[in-house]
Each structure stands twice: as structure tokens, then as C-alpha cells.
């Protein structure tokens, strides 16, 4: 009798510790979770589910997709009730699979357009990117994605408390933001930078002057670098759609010309997707190959080196809707696109981008200049101060040293005959101390 | 024995060596006290206490130490 009482007391004590820990972890986790696009997205999807509606057209992919597809225009142009964009930042192909699976189970989309660039196939999975997808899934799919895609200590991310522990200092501001989220009826205000607009579309402000796109992150594509796991998930996406009678289309969302030129074997990536599409009887469009994009989608329509801004999204969506309508009617849409990368490049009549690698050497600065342009174009560089004073006059030489200077410098690149558009970049020397 | 207690009291006047029996066990003497006591004892009683004799049973009380001194004197 006494033994069982002691045992009971011990069990209760352990349960008490577990319970207090679990409850505190849950409450703190909730308080620490910041308001993200997922909150708005989930709210809209919940409303759709509740009213028994279904998705007519679903876009899935990375941030390039949610910045360039204006779902309102899509609905309007295509005459559809529900066009949804379930894209998340840096979405992995495994994330796309689970997103598609979840949407099919809940909102039965009739057609899915899957966005692909070159990174999804060659990149390792990153926990933070996958968590953004997890935030939008049903509980069952959340657990399944954790089981299949997370290993080792990454599984700790199942705890919101652990995932958001860096927000501890902002916990009160966060609780306030959550309160306001409900008060504002899950509508995000335009903050002048980027905001969640409608059914997954994120309107981005900002505009880059033509020729002023910075040369960021060189990407490399090669079939050898493609990871088996990513191919596996791409095939799973295709299989899943087939099994459920969902029409699947592949596409590449528009990006800057810089990004296309600064990706090794960019054309091979495009060919790879075309091959996958052909093998599976799917349609694939690369919106970067849109004819006359230099005219209607210049760098000004981009908010940064990779994404379209809201205005650019409007143009892209209208045009893409037109193409989809024609396809629906069985018409040939190949005239909308350049057939090859070379053909596209012929329409580029400018120096695409220029860049200077700057290093401080004692009192002087060491400059390594480079640029992106069509093959065969002779390039000349000039370096000026912020007042327009010429430090290094037009030269083909790429390695320079400038001394005793502060403030900003401007690097300009032009073609030999100056018959192409120029590119330029401004650098603040104090950043290179 | 009185001589021994006098030696020890000179080194640690705050301890009552007549009655204390846990000098080592209760950390009443520190290592410097022990060295000092051993030094004086060696000089006064003409013995050579060495490291091997540094056991609690020999130093826990003045009488225990006195036993050790007698034993060492006999061995000579």
C-alpha cells in the first residue's frame, strides 16, 4: 500500500515537471512566433476551406514566383474565382511537393503551375526554408515533412520555442503584433517595402535603374551537380498531380538579365527543365525568354537583383494570363518566347552589369573590375568620384589601384564603340576598411 | 605529552589540543600547521616524521601524535 503511494507520488512528480515544461514551452513558443506571410496565407486558405471553395489555379515555388504573379490580375484576366500562390522564400523542391500535397488534399486545385529556377535542383535542403513551408501545412503533413526532411538537431525546430528563441528580446512587441493581426482582420498594411497583398502575392516596392543591377551570387548549374533527392521530389510532384488528375505545368519566373548572365550554364538549366517537361508530357515556359522583355521588363521593373516589383508583376501576370488563355484554347504560343538563350541574348543591347571587388591595401584601394555582356563585346571601364572627377579614364585594364580617397566612387562600363547601354555601380569606400 | 601540547598550542593558539580529536577530519589544521608542527616535533623530540606518517589516525589528536612520536623513538 505504501509502495504504491510512493510510486504514485513519484509518477505525479515527473508528470508535473513534464506538464509545466510543456505548457510553458507551448505558451512561450506562441508568444515568440512572429507574424509572417504564413499567417495571412493560412487565414485566407482557412476561409476558402470553410466556404467549401476550391482553387482553380495554384502557383507553387520560391519568392521569385510570389513577387511576379499578381493573383488578382490572374483571377481577373482568366475569369477564375480562386488563383492562389503558395510560394515561400527559397522553397526547396521537397517543400513544393508537400505544399502541393497539402493543397490537393484541402483545396483540390484544378491546375498547378510549378516554378523552377536552377537552384532547386542543385541545392542542399536548408532547414529555415523548409520551415516556411511547414508553417502552411496541415498538422499531418507538417509531421510527415518533419519526418522525411529534418534530421538530427534540426528536429528541435518542431518546437516553436527553440525555432524563435532569438526573438526573446522582442517578445512583447511580438505579442502586440499578433493582437494587431487579428484586429486588422489579417490584412497586412503596405509598409512601402513589401507586403502580402492577396492569396500569396507579395507586392514589392523598389526599382533598379537599368544597368545598375549588382552582380550577386554566382550560380552554377550542371547536370552532375543535380542531387538525386531533388530529382526524386520533382518526380513525386509530377506523379502526385497525375494521380489526382491535376493538370501540372512548369515555368521559370522572370528574373534580372544579370542573374541569367551570372549563372554558369544557364541555358543548360532551361534545357534540363524542357527535357523533364517533354518526358512527362508537360508544358514548360521560361518567362525570362519572353520576347521584347528588354523593352517591357527592364531592370526598372525589378526590386532587386532577382525579383520583379509590383509593377513588373502586373505586366508579367497580364502577359502570362494571355499565354495561358491561348494555350487553353489549343493555340500555339511559341511566338511569345525566344527559342534559345542565344536568341534572347541577341536582343540584349547593353552591358548588363558591372562590378568592382575592392580591398584596402594600406592607404590605397585595390580594384578588380569585371562585367557581364554578350560574348565578343569589347568592354571599357571608367572610375569616377562622386563629383564626377575622373580617377581612371576609359580603359580595358581591369586591375587598378586608387589611393588616398574617401567617400564614394562610381564604376562605369561601356562597350568599345559605346553603341550599347552602359552599366554602373556606386561604392562607398568606408565599407572596405 | 605536555611538551607536545605546548608546541601545538604555540602554532595554533585557537585550538584546544587537550580535547580535540578531529584535527584532520574536521580540517582544523591546515597543511602549513602540520608542517610547522612536524618541524617543531622533529626538533624537540629528535625524531623524523615523514610523509608516510601523515595519516589521519596519527594527527587527529595530540595523544595520537604522541603515540606516533613514541613509536618512532623506539624504532631508533
Amino acid at each position, binding site marked *: 500500500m505504501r509502495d504504491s503511494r510512493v510510486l504514485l507520488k513519484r509518477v505525479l512528480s515527473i508528470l*508535473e515537471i513534464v506538464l509545466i515544461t510543456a505548457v510553458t514551452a507551448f505558451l512561450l513558443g506562441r508568444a515568440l512566433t512572429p507574424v509572417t506571410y504564413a499567417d495571412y496565407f493560412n487565414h485566407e486558405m482557412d476561409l476558402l476551406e470553410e466556404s467549401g471553395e476550391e482553387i482553380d489555379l495554384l502557383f507553387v515555388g520560391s519568392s521569385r514566383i510570389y513577387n511576379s504573379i499578381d493573383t488578382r490580375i490572374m483571377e481577373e484576366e482568366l475569369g477564375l474565382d480562386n488563383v492562389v500562390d503558395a510560394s515561400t522564400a527559397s522553397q526547396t523542391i521537397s517543400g513544393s511537393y508537400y505544399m502541393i500535397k497539402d493543397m490537393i488534399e484541402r483545396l483540390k486545385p484544378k491546375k498547378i503551375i510549378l516554378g523552377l529556377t536552377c537552384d532547386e535542383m542543385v541545392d542542399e535542403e536548408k532547414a529555415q526554408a523548409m520551415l516556411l513551408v511547414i508553417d502552411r501545412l496541415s498538422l499531418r503533413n507538417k509531421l510527415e515533412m518533419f519526418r522525411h526532411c529534418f534530421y538530427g538537431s534540426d528536429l528541435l525546430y518542431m518546437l516553436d520555442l527553440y525555432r524563435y528563441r532569438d526573438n526573446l528580446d522582442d517578445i512583447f512587441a511580438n505579442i502586440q503584433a499578433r493582437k494587431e493581426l487579428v484586429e486588422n482582420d489579417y490584412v497586412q498594411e503596405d509598409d512601402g517595402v513589401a507586403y502580402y497583398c492577396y492569396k500569396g502575392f507579395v507586392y514589392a516596392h523598389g526599382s533598379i535603374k537599368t544597368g545598375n543591377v549588382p552582380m550577386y551570387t554566382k550560380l552554377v548549374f550542371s547536370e552532375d551537380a543535380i542531387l538525386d533527392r531533388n530529382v526524386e521530389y520533382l518526380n513525386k510532384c509530377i506523379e502526385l498531380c497525375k494521380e489526382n488528375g491535376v493538370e501540372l505545368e512548369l515555368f521559370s519566373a522572370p528574373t534580372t538579365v544579370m542573374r541569367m548572365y551570372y549563372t554558369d550554364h544557364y541555358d543548360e538549366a532551361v534545357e534540363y527543365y524542357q527535357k523533364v517537361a517533354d518526358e512527362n508530357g508537360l508544358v514548360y515556359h521560361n518567362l525570362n525568354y519572353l520576347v521584347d522583355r528588354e523593352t517591357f521588363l527592364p531592370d526598372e521593373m525589378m526590386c532587386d537583383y532577382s525579383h520583379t516589383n509590383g509593377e513588373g508583376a502586373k505586366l508579367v501576370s497580364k502577359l502570362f494570363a494571355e499565354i495561358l488563355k491561348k494555350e487553353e484554347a489549343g493555340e500555339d504560343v511559341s511566338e511569345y518566347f525566344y527559342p534559345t538563350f542565344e536568341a534572347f541574348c541577341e536582343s540584349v543591347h547593353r552591358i548588363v552589369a558591372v562590378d568592382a571587388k575592392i580591398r584596402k591595401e594600406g592607404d590605397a584601394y585595390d580594384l578588380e573590375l569585371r562585367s557581364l555582356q554578350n560574348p565578343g563585346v569589347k568592354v571599357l571601364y571608367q572610375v569616377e568620384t562622386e563629383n564626377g572627377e575622373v580617377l581612371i579614364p576609359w580603359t580595358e585594364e581591369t586591375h587598378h589601384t586608387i589611393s588616398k580617397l574617401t567617400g564614394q566612387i562610381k564604376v562605369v562600363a561601356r562597350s568599345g564603340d559605346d553603341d550599347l547601354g552602359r552599366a554602373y555601380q556606386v561604392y562607398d569606400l568606408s565599407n572596405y576598411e | 605529552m605536555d611538551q607536545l601540547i605546548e608546541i601545538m598550542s604555540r602554532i595554533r593558539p585557537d585550538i584546544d589540543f587537550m580535547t580535540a580529536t578531529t584535527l584532520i577530519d574536521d580540517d582544523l589544521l591546515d597543511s602549513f600547521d602540520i*608542517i610547522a608542527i612536524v618541524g617543531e616535533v622533529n626538533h624537540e623530540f629528535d625524531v*623524523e616524521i615523514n610523509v608516510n606518517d601523515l595519516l589521519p589516525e596519527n594527527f587527529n589528536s595530540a595523544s595520537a601524535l604522541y603515540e606516533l612520536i613514541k613509536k618512532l623513538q623506539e624504532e631508533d
Partner: protein
Amino acid sequence: MNVASFLFLFFVAAVVFAYYCVPPRHRWLVLLAASIFFYCTYGIPHVAYLIISSLIIFFGALAMQKASSQYANESASLDKQEKKQRKEALKKKKKKISRIAIAIVLGVWIVLKYTNFMISNINAFLPGDGISYVSWIMPLGISFYTFDLLGYLIDVYRDKYEAETDYLRFLTYVSFFPHIIQGPFSRYDDLGRQLKQEHRFSYDQLMEGATRILWGFFKKLVVADKLAVMIAAIKSSYTERPAVFLVFAFLMYSFQLYADFTGYMDIMSGISHILGIKLAENFRQPYLSKTVDEFWRRWHITLGEWFRDYVFYPLSMNSMAYKVANYARSHWGNKAAKLLPSYIALFFVWGATGLWHEADWKYVLWGYVNMLIIMYSMQFADTHLKIRQRLHIKEDSLFWNLFCIVRTFVLISFVRIFSGSESITAAISYLRYLFSGSLFVAVPLSELFVELKTSEMIVIIVGIIMMIAADIWNEKGQWNDIRQKCPMLLRNGILAMLIISIILFAGGENDLLGGFMYARF
């Protein structure tokens, strides 16, 4: 296998489970297997050093034991003269065996640890690049198990106890995984004896041990690691900061060291406790010490006791020491006779202690500064007593006790500037900025805690308060009382909060895999 990792927790759980599944007689074998396995995860070549050193000492001790037993058997039937002769012969033989064994085992350790140090010193006098450094790796824990082995051999030499006859039992003691990497230094008649006893499962031991492990992880992963970030940031920018930051840094460094070291000890003691084994305590509320001398009897206790028993006493109680004492007595009086042998012994002890920590002159300097402080208070003990009497300061007044505690803490923390800096020159530079900089600058608390978020600062402060409270209760002997009177809900709530804190704060740049500070010894 890193201790601060899920893998290690899983390993411990597996060991405990296997340990209590196996019949009590064989439980030590589980420990042996687990300890060897644990050590192997650090590199199989390392195990070779461990095995070879332990074999040399084991057989050395056995050889001495055999000679002693032989003498004991034969001496009963001998007359006094022959007995004395045989005793001398035995002593000689034991000396020879122990010297060879110690020379090899200690020699290996010295070569591994100090070769580069000696090379760097020689190179200072050579032109050009000098001799090139070696890249030998120090086997983990070698500074600890080497000394455990030496202590065992010396104890057998001194007939303190009989040599162990079962090598596997002996190896279990040497390799016992909770104490092999960072200590505590264990004596064979303590830990070895415990490992031979049969231990029964006890739920209370399990819970006490688990609580202690949790507390240890909290101190290490939350308090120590975060303080380390802050102190590293101040150390790398001290030339640009007002002196108040430098003072804050060296004071907080003491808390970082304390949390790191006792955290590790708590984890290992907790694990041992679950296994029914009590490891020697290494800390006894050290920051409540009233003198620096007392501090070194409360901090890293087993290290101090090792040096006391195997270096200090032998040096201060041999015939040379007595000659010195007599010389001092006849030239300078009784006080000198009392103190001089101790001073000489201290000189060697503190030099060795400093060098044991690291093969660097900065640690030697650190050791000798500590020594000088201790010698100073020994030398002028009576003068200080007179001053206190003149000022009517009562020994047991709260004011005086607090003063002594704070004084000791500041002194110890200050001396750590030498051991905590990159080098002696770095330490001197730090000191220069410390004494010339502005001390009375108003700095908001959150800014003092450089590189730390407000939430991290709060948890560190709470952690330190908890550590101080626990120390005060322990010092007053009230700890058990408090624990029993504490309502279950509060106790469980605190444990839950420790777990939550670890999830919230552990890791970061250290990534849940930060190393423990004493492991590199």
C-alpha cells in the same frame, strides 16, 4: 563524443540502463566497457597511451607489493639486525621500481605537454626560425589520469593500501568516464573501492543525479557559454573601452569559470550518483572564502590535495627540509624555521600547479602571484592581527567577514587576468588600460553585458543569483533542509524553468557543442 550533445545524453541513458539490467556483481564491467568506448570516440591512438600508462603503473605497484609481502612473510622470523637490512633492501627495491614507473609515465606526459613550450623558449635564443614545433596531440584527459596513476603508485609505495591485483578492475578506475576528461582527481582507496562495491538501483539517486545533471548543463550551456561570448568581446576590444568594462570583465570571468567548471563537475557527479558512485567534490563554495589560502582549499580541491600530498608534504618533510629548518632556526629564529620550509615547498608547488594548467609562462606567473599573496599573509599574520585588534575589528562581525569575502574574490579575479589573457604581454597591456582608463563612467547595465541580448543578460543574472544562494545555503549547512521544505510544485517548476532556459539559450555560435574549458588539460 562531446559532452554537451544529445548523443552523450543517449550514451549515458544507455549505460545506466545496461548497468542496472546486469546483475550487481558484473555492473563494473558495464562501466569498463562504456568508459573505453567513450574514450575511443576521441580517437583510438589516444587509448593506447591510457592502456600503456595504466599497465606500467599496475605492474609497478604489483612488483612493489610482491616485494613488500615477501618482506612481511620473512621478517617475522628474523632478528632485529637482519630485519633492518631487509627493510633497507626493500626500500631500495621499491624506490627503484617506482622511479622507473614514474619516470616513464610522468616523462611521457611531460614530453607531450611541454616539448613545444621548451622549443619556444630555446627558439627565443636562436637566430632565424629555430627548431620547428612538433604536432603531437595530447590524449584527452592525460593530465588527469596520469596524476591519478602516479598518486596510486605513490600510495602503494607508502603502504597506504595494497596494490590491485585485477588489471580490469584497475583499468575501470583509471578510465571511469565521468572523471577521466576533467577530473576530479580520485584516490584508489576511494573511487577504486567504490567501483568494487555492488550498487543497487535507487529512484532517489536517479532523481537527485538527474537534477544535478540538469543544473550542471544549465550552468555550463546558459550561464558560462553566454558569459564567454561577452568576455571574449570585451577582451578583443578593451583598448577602446572605458576601464569600467575591463573591471567588469575580469570579475565576471570568475563567474564564467565557476559556472563552466562546476557545471561540468555537476554533470559528471550527477551521472556517477545515478550509478551509485560518489565522486570527490572539487568545489566547496569557493567564492565565500575569506583568504586566498582558504580559496585554494575550496577551488579545484582535488588538484590542491594532490599537490599537497604528493609534492608539498614530501618536499617540506624530508631530511633536506629539516636541515633548512634548523639552519633557519639558528640564524633567524623560530618563525623563520616554521615558515621557510613551507615557502620553499610552495615555490615548487605553485610553479608546478601553474605549469600543470598550461605550458605557458603566463600560468607560471599566475601561480607565483597566488603564491606571493599567500606567503605575504603568512609572513605578516601577526602584524595583521595586531592591526585588527588596534582597529577593534571583531573577527566574527558581518562587516569583517563580508570585507574578507569581497577582498578575496577581487584578488582571485584580478590574478586571473594573467591566466585568462593570451600571454603575459597581453595581460600587462590589459592591466595598463585597466589602471589608466576611466572607471567612473555611467554605463547602462545592458551595455556592460557586451554582445548579449537583454534576455541573455537577465538569465545570466538570475543564474548567478541562484548559484550564490545555493552556495550560501550549502555553506550554512541548510541546503538539505531547504530542499525538503521546498514545496513540490516550486521545485518542479524550477526544474521545468531550467529545461526551458536551456532550450532558449543553449548554443548559438557554440551550437550546443561548445567545449568545456578544462578539457584541454
